């Protein structure tokens, strides 16, 4: 019983970690086709902003988390305007040399990767120069749940709950609202969407802002439980990419499913071997096998099975 509870808690923990790590990336990579290697640093912005809102401005933690997410969203919009879409440099270019200086990075996987890696170097090092090698951490709220001889941080359970809320909200926004439809139309075929009256520039900007805001929220939520150092984003990056890609073409649903599958693998192996290292290795190997045997990811596989069944009828 106690071992079963341990396993359940470990599963919730891994699930929340994978889903929250992937949430912002699912939108920026999954929907916009921009490999954002600075994703971890967006999380860093959220975590630092939240921590400073508590320690320097004295805000209560939940308010500080909202502030952290908003700051990251605004930061993301600024990045989108200057680097990803090239709007600001091109505006300056039009005024000074009379031509566009750069091309947008949408759907240029490799180039977006190099550009965002450069951005991530700048951000990590700037954080180090400005704030030093670590900053003060805010305490973990809520205390512990005790069961038998074990206890478990209540806050981590809250994280699991929030991760599900985030998924539901993202699913709702991108599938049930006009904005979501515009986003998907823009990503599927920019020219046609533009011809039908969608302001694609604005859509790109807002989508990137939402993705960044979610990354910031992840940072805000993990701020109380991580050591606050400039490299804190690194631990999220790989799991985030893996979850999004294993999830497949339907990104929100896919992220939920891959979070479940990968979380289960990681929790089980961690529980069996008593080593988080082997849990992580198992998670990564499971992801490699999933990519090999389900080339379209989990949701791609579901899609195929469904269409085959329809053909059979």
């Amino acid at each position: 019983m106690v071992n079963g509870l341990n396993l359940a808690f470990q599963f919730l923990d891994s699930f929340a970690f994978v889903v929250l790590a992937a949430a912002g990336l699912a939108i920026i990579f999954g929907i916009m086709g921009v490999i954002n290697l600075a994703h971890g640093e967006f999380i860093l912005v959220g975590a630092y902003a939240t921590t400073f809102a508590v320690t320097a401005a004295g805000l209560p933690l939940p308010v500080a988390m909202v502030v952290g997410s908003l700051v990251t969203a605004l930061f993301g919009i600024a990045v989108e305007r200057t680097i990803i879409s090239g709007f600001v440099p091109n505006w300056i270019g039009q005024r000074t040399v009379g031509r566009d200086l750069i091309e947008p990075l949408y759907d240029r996987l490799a180039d977006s990767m190099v550009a965002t890696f450069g951005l991530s170097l700048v951000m990590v090092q700037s954080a180090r120069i400005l704030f030093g090698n670590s900053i003060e951490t805010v305490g973990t709220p809520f205390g512990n749940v005790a069961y038998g001889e074990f206890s478990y941080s209540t806050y981590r359970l809250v994280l699991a709950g929030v991760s599900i809320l985030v998924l539901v909200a993202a699913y709702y926004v991108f599938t049930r609202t006009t904005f979501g439809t515009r986003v998907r139309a823009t990503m599927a075929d920019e020219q046609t969407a533009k011809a039908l009256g969608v302001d694609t520039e604005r859509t790109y900007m807002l989508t990137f802002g939402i993705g960044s805001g979610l990354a910031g929220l992840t940072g805000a939520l993990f701020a109380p439980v991580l050591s606050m150092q400039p490299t804190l984003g690194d631990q999220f990056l790989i799991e985030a990419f893996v979850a999004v890609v294993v999830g497949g073409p339907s990104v929100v649903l896919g992220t939920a499913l891959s979070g479940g599958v990968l979380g289960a693998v990681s929790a089980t192996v961690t529980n069996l071997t008593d080593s988080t290292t082997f849990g992580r290795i198992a998670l990564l190997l499971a992801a490699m096998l999933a990519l090999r045997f389900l080339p379209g990811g989990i949701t791609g596989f579901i899609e195929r099975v469904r269409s085959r069944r329809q053909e059979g009828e």
Partner: protein
Amino acid sequence: MAAESATGADRGALARIRGRLEGPNTVGNSTGFWIGFAVAVLALVAYPLVGNGESFSLFLVLALLGLSLSLVWGYSGVLSFGQVVFFGVGGYTFGVVSINLPDPTGITAAALTGVVVGGITAALLGYFMFYGGVRDVYVTIITLVSTMVLQTFMAQTAGSEWTIGEAALGGFNGMPAIPLLELGITGVVSYQFVFNTLELFVPGLGTVEVDPFYYLALAALVAAYLGLRVLVNSDFGRVMVAVREDQDRTQMFGYDVKRVKLLTFTVGGALAALSGVLYAARNVYIDPQVFALWFATLPVIWVSVGGRKSLLGAVIATIGIEYFRLSVQGEMALVVLGALLLVFILALPGGIVPWIAGKISGSAVPVSELDDADAPAEVSES
């Protein structure tokens, strides 16, 4: 190389060699280029007389790693983060074998084993991916994940149970005390390349002491560059480029796309492993940092900045970026490097070398043709 100076029968042989080295798949097909190339090689040969060859040899070794990615990504369109996997596997294999057999024959065998094991690793991973129908961004992610698996795994091999023969893998701290690189056959002929000085008599300068490893690395780099030029300008190279440009159409024409990708990936893996062997031999040390994310990203950056469709770009950018990265100290170095990467990739998406080549040759290679998107990037619909 200087084809004009050749006379009579020589001209035929030189022209044949030159014909093999030149083609539409590489920049630099003019006599002027080869003169410049000869000058650059001579300058590199002379560099240890004025500069520090012992530290510069690192850049030459890493340039081999850059070349391996240029081949795999730039010519057959497979964006791989896994070059450092083969690099690290080669280095670790070299360390394990040479610690167990620390005599010249053993060390020579260790170097060869490192390259072969790296190549086999690449072949296995490539077979797993390409023959399983994995494509595009999924290949990239699988190679990235394989790097992370090795990093996580190697970092926990600190215990005494992770010992192969005499060699302890050493976990996070890595594997120190790799024997000095002494190539040859024990008792017959052998030469120690690292931590050794070669005394050369240079007219005008008298006797100078240089680092023999530098010349080993330089020879390996020049040989690899010229060898890859022959490869990419051969018929097989044309098929590689066809696969890069359009896989489905190449398959329609009856080429075995999977086999082409697997072969290229294996050759690239072996080359990366050679780089790893030389890296471990040069540092007499290797640790799991070679599998770290930042290190896995470096080759992609070198090749992007230099121009991924150009072997020369990979070499120049690797040497340039690494020289800059390691020589500029202080806390602003990484900020400047990051900003440079941003500016280069945004302003010159095709890379520096193709851009310069386009400028020099007028419009022989239009830059606009070089910066098209490399892979269909539609990842999602919802």
